[in-house]
């Protein structure tokens, strides 16, 4: 807050207003380089708020990926380590094993986590590493100019699928989160999103649970966040959020998949074995 804003804040507090929301101090003052309206910013905010509310700012280490969020360490006022592309879960494993009572989390995009880093992701989950992984799925390689990712939808246009992703040529969208839920090493697996206030509140509760779980030492907590890449999708942020609801959500259903080490009721086996009930975009 600058001087004028601080003065206005004091004025409101003196008039009997209570502060309902203000930017957490666990975020640094640095302006995030993300495009206007990008879900990475919202997701950063939620993680920082959880760290703040849990009072663990001095005992948390984040690991940032390669992708648009490569500079995440500039935005969190906590210890951070940058990993090579896709290797965040391996780096985080080492940090957590050497510091078992420190809260450790990775922050990765879909290209990082579900393409080049697939092996690290699956093995960290299968080993049941007692840490938190945050997976921001925007269905595209945002940073490098919007190329197809494993998560790109069937029919979705990207720089490398200009006529839309084709199953015969490009295979199926990879549901990493469902896949990981089938591994015994995962303790909590959920998919959330951050495009409206209700979704944001749920996503924050999920992130909180994923961090709290580290105290139990029972395995990996994995939170996928569906997010827009409005630049890569070539839409305004508001249109991108709507597009995400209409197109991403039918293919990547929102909600808990596995809680306290058990697959949730109502989660259908077909979804877990990656049968192909994927909608084709128009």
């Amino acid at each position: 807050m600058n001087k004028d804003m601080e003065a206005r804040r004091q004025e409101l507090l003196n008039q009997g207003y209570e502060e309902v929301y203000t930017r957490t101090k666990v975020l640094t003052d640095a302006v995030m380089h993300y495009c206007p309206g990008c879900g990475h910013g919202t997701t950063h905010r939620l993680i920082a708020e959880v760290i703040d509310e849990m009072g663990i700012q001095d005992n948390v280490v984040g690991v940032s990926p390669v992708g648009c969020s490569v500079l995440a360490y500039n935005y969190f006022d906590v210890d951070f380590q940058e990993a090579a592309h896709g290797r965040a879960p391996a780096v985080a494993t080492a940090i957590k094993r050497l510091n078992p009572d420190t809260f450790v989390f990775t922050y990765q995009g879909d290209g990082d986590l579900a393409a080049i880093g697939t092996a690290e992701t699956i093995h960290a989950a299968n080993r049941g590493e007692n840490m938190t992984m945050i997976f921001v799925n925007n269905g595209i390689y945002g940073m490098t100019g919007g190329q197809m990712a494993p998560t790109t939808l069937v029919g979705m246009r990207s720089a490398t699928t200009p006529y839309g992703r084709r199953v015969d040529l490009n295979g199926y969208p990879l549901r990493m989160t469902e896949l990981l839920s089938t591994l015994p090493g995962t303790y909590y697996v959920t998919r959330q999103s951050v495009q409206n206030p209700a979704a944001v509140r749920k996503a924050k509760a999920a992130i909180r649970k994923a961090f709290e779980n580290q105290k139990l030492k029972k395995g990996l907590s994995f939170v996928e966040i569906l997010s827009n890449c409005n630049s890569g999708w070539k839409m305004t942020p508001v249109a991108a959020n709507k597009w995400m609801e209409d197109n991403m959500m039918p293919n990547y259903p929102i909600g808990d998949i596995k809680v306290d080490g058990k697959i949730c009721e109502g989660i259908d086996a077909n979804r877990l074995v990656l049968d192909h009930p994927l909608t084709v975009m128009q």
Partner: protein
Amino acid sequence: MAFKGQIIIDTEHCKGCGVCVPVCPMKCIELSKEVNGKGYNFTHTVNDSCIGCASCAMVCPDGVISVYKKKI
């Protein structure tokens, strides 16, 4: 019980993305015609009907909105 709300927007750090505009139940927020130092059409409040629900702050990727409320 009714609440009266107020928001403080850090206009210099607003990126004018507009995602806070449609989520306000009271239609308090609009993008301004003016731009800030970075060239973004920052948001401003256009009426006095804020109820302090913090919906706008929840969705702001850059965390530039602070929200205040009191009972009336």
